[in-house]
């Protein structure tokens, strides 16, 4: 049994000659030859296959157009799909590059150790790889119980493995999407309204009169239907108020941009609440009818005046009053966007609560132009035995620590894997499906320690991401355009479902996630949970239960159903029972008070950058989804590296020039592996720098992504944990610039 596991760059021995020769032919030879022969192909000569996109979590329904030679030429949005309305975003349009990326994982790989102790990956057959993982799962089950096999998952393929692990007897799973992303708003909105805002969020931007974005950078995050609706809102003359220390794209398109000092948002929101209450601008009828704790709130914000907030936020009192009045004037058709990636400063649930309270005061809940009541279709469960009971799982680590977390916390799963930390329930092996943990997670040392500690890691991915380098077994997954998957069903204005079917056969020796999960299941004697030969059977069975069929769905891709839960909005003065302790919208959270948290949010001062350091703000670029798309040939064409945005004043001070390469060093002395280019721009405050997340890949096998730009996550070593739900606040990190290659300095020091 190994205790240490070296990071292997998949480029070593295993993948070998076949891959290299393919690359030579594929990119240089055939590629050019094809372009010689083929210009545009008319749609009549292409066959469309329905799918839904897997390049991000929005999951827009689309058509993959395949030409007569069996090549996917383009992917276009499904016009009937409310996620995209026939218009995919650049990542969806470029999704075809995911399938034709010649750097893809091509065969199963197994870690081997040479006599001299060095390690490498060896190509393996599916049988061998599957047996190895199944044997390990059996071993862990016997030695530690099935619960000791943990799962990190993301996206649709993750779901297949979730099913496998539940059937096997483990609920030790977590996905970065919760504690590293939108967890705070789930806990906050649930405690306030007794409901979640869902994904896609049920924001009625299309019909809003006032859209308030607090750090949410729609347009840079390419959440498709929201971007589309924001554009419609601009056409409709809606007021857009953006709060951001950076002149984001959304800020540029806004009526009001409040260039806030970072880490002070709660003060601004509380001042808005103060103005609404003390200038009597709030929706009195709504507040009286539906809310609990107004008096406590009023008392709480008594001194939180715009003047008070000015000293904290740098936003002029007049601006605060003016924007509060704009909101009140538009109420209830106001969208206070709940945001998505909220884990900033460790008090993020409270900030999201403040946003929820602000919405409630404006009566902006369940009203046209605010948040609508979304409805989804429940997909019938394919017949299978009950999952076995588990003795423990993610809930136990969250336990008393993060009582209001509603999903597994990734960092807790990592910590439970490290014996040194003496968790009562310890995890001994991992499955990782569809998430590149080293780049997705803050605090890389924690990940490395945990990865070294566990006995076994199996990774399923389409690309040789960093995480595959830690694996004992690597499963090459077919891309979304090559496989069946679960039926998409997300709540929306109209309930709807979407089908994903393969447009082409899986390339190389890759296999669909469902097939891999099933093969493992069969080897573990769990056939009853995988009682089908092809996942299409499951889909067809489910679709027939829903009154349609696989055959029909292949033709239409998306099907809408009539609403059953009632209208999209609340009626005027309608009685409404909220799913909270008090049955009302809790301006004062009883749950929070019970657990010893502030029942009403309050502003806490967060650390500021020391001299010569700048706060690291990171975000999205519209053409990439985190680290997973950087190597995509179509999308790397659009943006192949990130830059670090620096205010001209800072650039002057440091003598930094546009395009100059620097290394970044943070407050804890962490240095980026790769240099990153400077962008001198007025779009960022002088006390902060900005980077697009996802770059700085360290795996050489990613030919277009390796070493391009720097990884913001390497600079995030200070994690401010949210005590309420375990969110990993990542914006309390400060960087400084190194103009010389730190590797040279180290060498000189040695010499």
């Amino acid at each position, binding site marked *: 049994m190994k205790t240490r596991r070296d990071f292997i760059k998949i480029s070593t021995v295993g993948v070998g000659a076949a891959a290299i020769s393919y690359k030579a032919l594929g990119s240089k030879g055939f590629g050019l030859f094809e372009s010689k022969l083929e210009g545009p192909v008319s749609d009549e000569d292409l066959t469309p296959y329905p799918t839904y996109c897997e390049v991000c979590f929005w999951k827009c329904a689309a058509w993959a157009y395949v030409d007569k030679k069996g090549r996917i030429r383009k992917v276009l949005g499904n016009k009937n799909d409310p996620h995209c309305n026939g218009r995919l975003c650049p990542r969806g349009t470029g999704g075809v590059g995911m399938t034709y990326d010649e750097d893809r994982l091509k065969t199963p790989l197994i870690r081997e150790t040479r006599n001299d102790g060095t390690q490498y990956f060896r190509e393996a057959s599916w049988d061998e790889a599957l047996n190895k993982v199944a044997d390990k799962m059996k071993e862990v089950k016997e030695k530690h119980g099935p619960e000791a096999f943990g799962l990190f998952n993301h996206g649709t393929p993750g779901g297949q493995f979730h099913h496998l692990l539940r059937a096997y007897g483990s609920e030790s799973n977590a996905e970065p999407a919760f504690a590293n992303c939108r967890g705070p708003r789930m806990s906050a909105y649930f405690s306030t309204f007794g409901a979640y805002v869902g994904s896609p969020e049920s924001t009625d931007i299309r019909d809003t009169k006032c859209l308030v974005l607090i750090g949410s950078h729609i347009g840079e995050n390419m959440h498709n239907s929201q971007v589309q609706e924001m554009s419609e809102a601009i056409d409709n003359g809606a007021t857009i108020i953006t709060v951001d220390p950076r002149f984001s794209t959304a800020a540029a398109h806004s009526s009001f941009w409040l260039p806030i000092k970072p880490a002070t948002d709660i003060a601004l929101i509380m001042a808005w609440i103060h103005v609404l209450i003390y200038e009597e601008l709030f929706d009195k009828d709504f507040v009286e009818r539906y809310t609990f704790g107004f008096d406590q709130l009023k008392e709480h914000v008594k001194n939180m005046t715009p003047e008070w907030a000015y000293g904290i936020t740098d936003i002029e009192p007049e601006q605060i009053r003016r924007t509060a009045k704009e909101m009140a004037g538009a109420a209830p058709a106001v969208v206070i966007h709940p945001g998505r990636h909220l884990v900033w400063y460790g008090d993020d649930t409270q900030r999201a609560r403040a946003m929820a309270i602000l919405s409630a005061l404006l009566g902006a809940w369940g009203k046209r132009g605010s948040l609508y009541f979304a409805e989804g279709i429940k997909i019938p469960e394919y017949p299978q035995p009950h999952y076995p009971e588990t003795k423990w799982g993610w809930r136990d680590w969250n336990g008393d620590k993060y009582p209001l977390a509603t999903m597994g916390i990734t960092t807790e799963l990592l910590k439970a894997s490290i014996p040194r930390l003496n968790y009562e329930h310890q995890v001994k092996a991992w499955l990782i499906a569809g998430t590149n943990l080293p780049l997705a997670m803050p605090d890389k040392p924690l990940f490395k320690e945990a990865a070294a500690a566990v006995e076994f890691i199996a990774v399923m991915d389409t690309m040789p991401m960093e995480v595959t380098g830690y694996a004992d077994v690597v499963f090459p997954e077919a891309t979304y355009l090559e496989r069946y998957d679960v039926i998409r069903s997300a709540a929306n204005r109209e309930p709807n479902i979407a089908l994903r079917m393969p447009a082409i056969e899986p390339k190389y020796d890759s296999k669909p996630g469902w097939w891999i999960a099933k093969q493992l299941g069969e080897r573990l004697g769990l056939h009853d949970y995988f009682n089908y030969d092809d996942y299409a059977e499951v889909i067809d069975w489910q679709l027939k239960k829903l009154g349609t069929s696989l055959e029909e769905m292949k033709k239409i891709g998306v099907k809408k159903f009539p609403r059953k839960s009632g209208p999209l909005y609340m009626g005027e003065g309608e009685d409404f029972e909220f799913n909270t302790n008090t049955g009302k919208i809790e301006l004062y959270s009883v749950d929070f008070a019970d657990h010893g948290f502030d029942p009403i949010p309050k502003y806490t001062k967060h650390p500021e950058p020391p001299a010569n350091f700048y706060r690291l703000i990171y975000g999205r670029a519209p053409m990439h989804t985190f680290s997973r798309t950087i190597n995509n040939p179509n999308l*790397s064409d659009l*943006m192949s590296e990130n830059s670090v945005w620096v205010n001209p004043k800072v650039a002057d001070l440091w003598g930094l020039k546009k395009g100059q390469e620097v290394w970044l060093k943070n407050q804890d002395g962490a240095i980026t592996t790769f240099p990153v280019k400077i962008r*001198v*721009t007025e779009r960022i405050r002088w006390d902060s720098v900005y980077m697009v997340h996802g770059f700085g890949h360290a795996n050489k096998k990613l030919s277009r992504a390796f070493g391009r730009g720097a990884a913001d996550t390497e600079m995030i070593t200070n994690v401010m944990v949210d005590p309420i739900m375990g969110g990993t606040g990542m914006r309390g990190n400060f960087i400084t610039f190194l103009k010389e290659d730190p590797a040279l300095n180290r060498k000189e020091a040695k010499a």
Partner: protein
Amino acid sequence: MKEELFVSGRNIPNIDPFLKIWHWQIPLYLFLGGLAAGILFFAGYFVVRGKEKEMQTAVKWAPLLAPIALVLGLGALFWDLKHKLYFWQLYTTIRLESPMGWGAWTLMIITPLSLIWVASYMKEIFPWWDWKFKLLDKFEAFVIKYRVPLAWVMMIYAIILGVYTGILLSAFNARPLWNTSILGPLFLVSGFSTGLAATIWMSKDAAERKVLSQIDLVFIFVEIFLIIHLFMGFLAGSETSIEAANLFLGGPFTVSFWVFVVLLGLVFPAVLETLEIWGFHVPKWLPAVLILFGGLMFRFIMVEAGQITRYLY
């Protein structure tokens, strides 16, 4: 602060960040074209003036270079084509608005003309020469008979060719550095000057060299005058023209242009030629080489710098 940048990763080879579609072939072609134009013009000129005897090198020997230069120039042009197999498309149409088209047709005419010219002197240059075919002998006799009209045609085409080497660039409105009508005369004068320089270098006759140097001095002065005018025009022009001029007035091309083209390529050889005319001993190759080198540099710089100048971004 004003910031303008591509955010869709545009980075097309030879287009971004600066245009570099025309490499060394085009300036070489322009140089060889100008050189041939100069040689052929003066060959014709001295025949028309009846100075055939006095100006042996200019009329007989130097023109030997012209077809070689033209063929090499055409070769360079062909080399630069990115879709070479389709080059014949040039000769399927006449497009009066296309300077490239003008060039293709002008060369199509002047190259054979230069060959005929050389052929008509073959027996004088190489007494052992034998055409071997009667028909060719007859043709030679015909050409010799009509040598003066031929000289006129050649002079006209030489001017067209010389001007054309400048027009090829100045026709492009999109490149502010090129977009000035002075470029036509400037390239003509510069081309003629290089033609003269080559002839001077070849000439073994001091009297002939003196005549040629005198003419060349005039051309050099006109050239310097035109260059000054070029910059006056730019500086009195729009923002893009001023930016174009600034490439040479403090910008990256300042040294290469003013030192190599103007000083070493024009002023210094002019001084040398003057000294020679005054009777000082100057190696005859020195001013000639400087002028030829200056002319070549001039074209390289103009082509490269011109591609950097633009309207947007």
